């Protein structure tokens, strides 16, 4: 090991190591970012395949393709894989690639721990997916794993599920500590907090949320483990516990988790809209304060997921108003994005198309969230397809569109090649149409009373379910085009300039494309005015 120490001064400017060990032993933030992004893409396709099975089963009423028991496993794994394997690692991958470049740092603050955070994930998801082949099948209690479904009535594989959540959580906590420490300690001289790019701000806040709530999730699954195997009664009223306690603990994690999956998207979209409007971002500091407000409020709204479980009236009223309050900072952000585009010289490259549709469709998802926040209305909507439509609107054309926008926006910087604009636009339009055809009708069938998580449904829901399935297939298969575009760009293409986009501002655009393996070996000079109005 001492060889590492002695060699260290010579290998400052070397390129990546050769062969597979480059990826296994790497300490480079760009390599690790790439690993995270490919891993999340793989999970996105696996979770997407499960969604295809779900929508195929729901194409017509009656049981067609799968057993109800397997259907339950599909909805559970689809949710868990998309959240913990798809969206979160994708954002961590983007943070790895971009945060050090955007603040003028050489790398993440703790590069070896960074690699550990990544390599835990493939093992964790191997365990989770292997539960499909265990006796009794995979977890089948929904991604929210409510007790007693996940305790008294759970299949034996729940133990493996619990431990895989534990190590996923460890990975998230270490990854977030790394991001926070990098942002607090590694900024180049002159990059003050209020001059940081918004993506960096969004990740600082996200990482803080993650460090605060992932341990709470660990606590929840630990109590489950004890209840199942060691005779405790946290979630069993017969012993003095309460199954509703599970829901409180879970959603104390779960609601901030929702914002963990959308705050980095806010950062990404702010950059893209600013660039393609060729203007300064409108209201930089209000954007920062809005994200901080959303993050703080996210800790006091968890019970709006539990309105129908039988909360005291005072709790329902408090959580209703606190939830509606979140619409204020979110509205600030939406108005700021619109004001940024106002009178801009807008061009509609693929990232901009995804970003604009993010603003529109995320707002639709936000407004249906506002409807769900109203207690008496929620009594009707709760656990129907209206909820499914709501959270898919904020997660698919919200979080996932922002990730796709980010990939198109920064891939020239990552690979040095431009993507194929024509194919990119095709991918956007197929996805945009697919996502709306898939999820908009779910509002209707939800309001008409179709409950979620059932493999079969009454005949009156048949038409819109078929439409929804067609949209889902269109969206799902369009993502193979995305895979093709990304591979094509990695292989080659028109060479990108350093700035790539005419209106792009920020330190990452000051280095050549592709970005050198080690971006900054000395602190860079800050020669750009960040997103504040002059």
């Amino acid at each position, binding site marked *: 090991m001492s060889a590492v120490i002695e060699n260290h001064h010579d290998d400052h400017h070397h390129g990546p190591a050769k062969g597979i060990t480059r990826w*296994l032993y790497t300490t480079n933030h760009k390599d690790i970012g790439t690993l995270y992004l490919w891993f999340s893409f793989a999970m996105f396709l696996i979770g997407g395949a499960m969604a295809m099975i779900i929508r195929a089963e729901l194409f017509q009423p009656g049981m067609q393709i799968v057993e109800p028991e397997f259907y339950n496993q599909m909805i559970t794994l689809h949710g868990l894989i998309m959240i913990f394997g798809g969206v979160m690692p994708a954002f961590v991958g983007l943070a790895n690639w971009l945060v050090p470049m955007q603040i003028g740092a050489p790398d993440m603050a703790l590069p070896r721990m960074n690699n550990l955070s990544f390599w835990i994930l493939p*093992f964790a998801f*191997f*365990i989770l997916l292997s539960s499909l082949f265990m006796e009794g099948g995979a977890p089948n209690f929904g991604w929210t794993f409510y007790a007693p479904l996940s305790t008294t009535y759970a299949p034996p594989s729940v133990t493996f599920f619990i431990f895989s959540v534990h190590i996923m959580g460890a990975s998230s906590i270490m990854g977030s*500590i*790394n991001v*926070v420490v990098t942002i607090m*300690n590694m900024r180049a001289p002159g990059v003050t907090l209020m001059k940081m790019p918004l993506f960096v701000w969004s990740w600082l806040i996200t990482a803080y949320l993650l460090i605060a709530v992932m341990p709470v999730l660990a606590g929840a699954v630990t109590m489950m483990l004890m209840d199942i195997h060691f005779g405790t009664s946290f979630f069993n009223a017969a012993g003095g516990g*309460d199954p509703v306690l599970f829901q409180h603990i879970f959603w104390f994690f779960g609601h901030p988790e929702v914002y963990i999956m959308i705050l980095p998207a806010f950062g990404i979209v702010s950059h893209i809209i600013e660039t393609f409007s060729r203007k300064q971002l409108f209201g930089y500091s209000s954007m920062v304060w809005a994200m901080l407000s959303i993050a703080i409020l996210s800790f006091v709204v968890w019970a709006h997921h539990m309105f129908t479980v039988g909360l005291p009236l005072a709790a329902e009223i408090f959580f209703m108003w606190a939830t509606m309050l979140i619409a204020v900072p979110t509205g600030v952000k939406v108005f700021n994005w619109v004001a940024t585009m106002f009178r801009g010289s807008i061009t509609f490259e693929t990232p901009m198309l995804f970003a604009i549709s993010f603003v529109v469709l995320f707002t639709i998802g936000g407004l249906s969230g506002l409807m769900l926040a109203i207690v008496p209305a929620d009594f009707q909507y709760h656990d129907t397809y209206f909820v499914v439509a709501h959270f898919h609107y904020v997660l698919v054309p919200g979080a996932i569109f922002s990730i796709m926008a980010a990939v198109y926006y920064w891939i020239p910087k990552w690979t040095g090649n431009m993507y194929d604009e024509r194919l990119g636009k095709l991918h956007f339009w197929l996805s945009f149409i697919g996502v709306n055809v898939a999820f908009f009708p779910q509002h209707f069938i939800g309001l008409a009373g179709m409950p979620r998580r059932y493999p079969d449904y009454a005949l009156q829901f048949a038409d819109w379910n078929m439409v929804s399935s067609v949209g889902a297939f269109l969206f799902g298969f369009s993502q193979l085009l995305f895979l093709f575009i990304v591979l094509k760009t990695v292989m080659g293409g028109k060479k990108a300039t350093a700035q790539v986009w005419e209106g792009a501002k920020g330190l990452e655009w000051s280095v050549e494309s592709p970005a050198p393996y080690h971006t900054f070996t000395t602190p860079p000079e800050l020669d750009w005015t960040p997103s504040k109005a002059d």
Partner: protein
Amino acid sequence: MSGGSYYVPDQSRFPIFMAFSLFLLVMGASSTINNLDDPTSNSVYILYSGFGCLFLTMFFWFRQVIKEHLAGMDSNQLKQSYVYGMAWFIFSEVMFFAAFFGALFYVRTLAVPWLAGEGEKGIGIAAIELWQGFESTWPVITTPDQGEGYVLAEKSMAWPGWDHALKWLPLWNTIVLLSSSVTVHFAHLGLKNGDRKKFNILLGVTVFLALIFVGLQAAEYYEAYAHYGLTLNSGIYGSTFFMLTGFHGFHVMMGGFMLGIMLARSVFAGHFEDHDHFGFEAASWYWHFVDVVWVMLFLFVYIL
């Protein structure tokens, strides 16, 4: 900011070894727990090998970090990163305990009274006569199902009154742990003033007190299981009591182990300078954190 060039460590095998160790550990743990009733199961060896690999990887990883530090490769900026990293790690630990304290507060103030028919929710439970005869007390000795599915305890670990205070182990545990926070603080002062002997002795005393605490805690658990009939199976009081004190005890062991390592580094290898000793400082932060958790436990689990 040093202004010089940045430090980026070379490639390292430790992270992936550690991830693999964790994989072995959790696979072993899951299959062991799932096969508790099966004496022929060999899963526990996977668990042991996971623990073994984890310890070895951590040993070599920390050794590497210490070597790099002694070789003068750590910039001030990197040292600052360790400081921030440890602070945020402790914050995550605070939130882990918050989940269990939250559960305790929830059952004490809401769930148990409701089960006994208090409040607007409780009226509903009482109306369907779900848990007849259950009374809301804390500690809950008789469970709502009157011990049908649980083994009821005879006695709780709560404050026994002033007459028996001196024979009450948690009081002694509090005294031991609070003293250890004082000794580790003065050990730190000794190190800062360049008094190596004072540092070694006081740190040794701290580790010794940690051992005493763990010993007393073990005695208390023995007492609970053997004489009070209080087990994990005794309903919600036993559940919260053992999980909160158990996780705290586990953290005491980890903190004591860290301080023990620091002691060994100081005595046998002469590590730490009066101005440069974050390894020790991080362990002492952790120790103070464990102490604060105990004070909360003493108040909310034992006294109130």
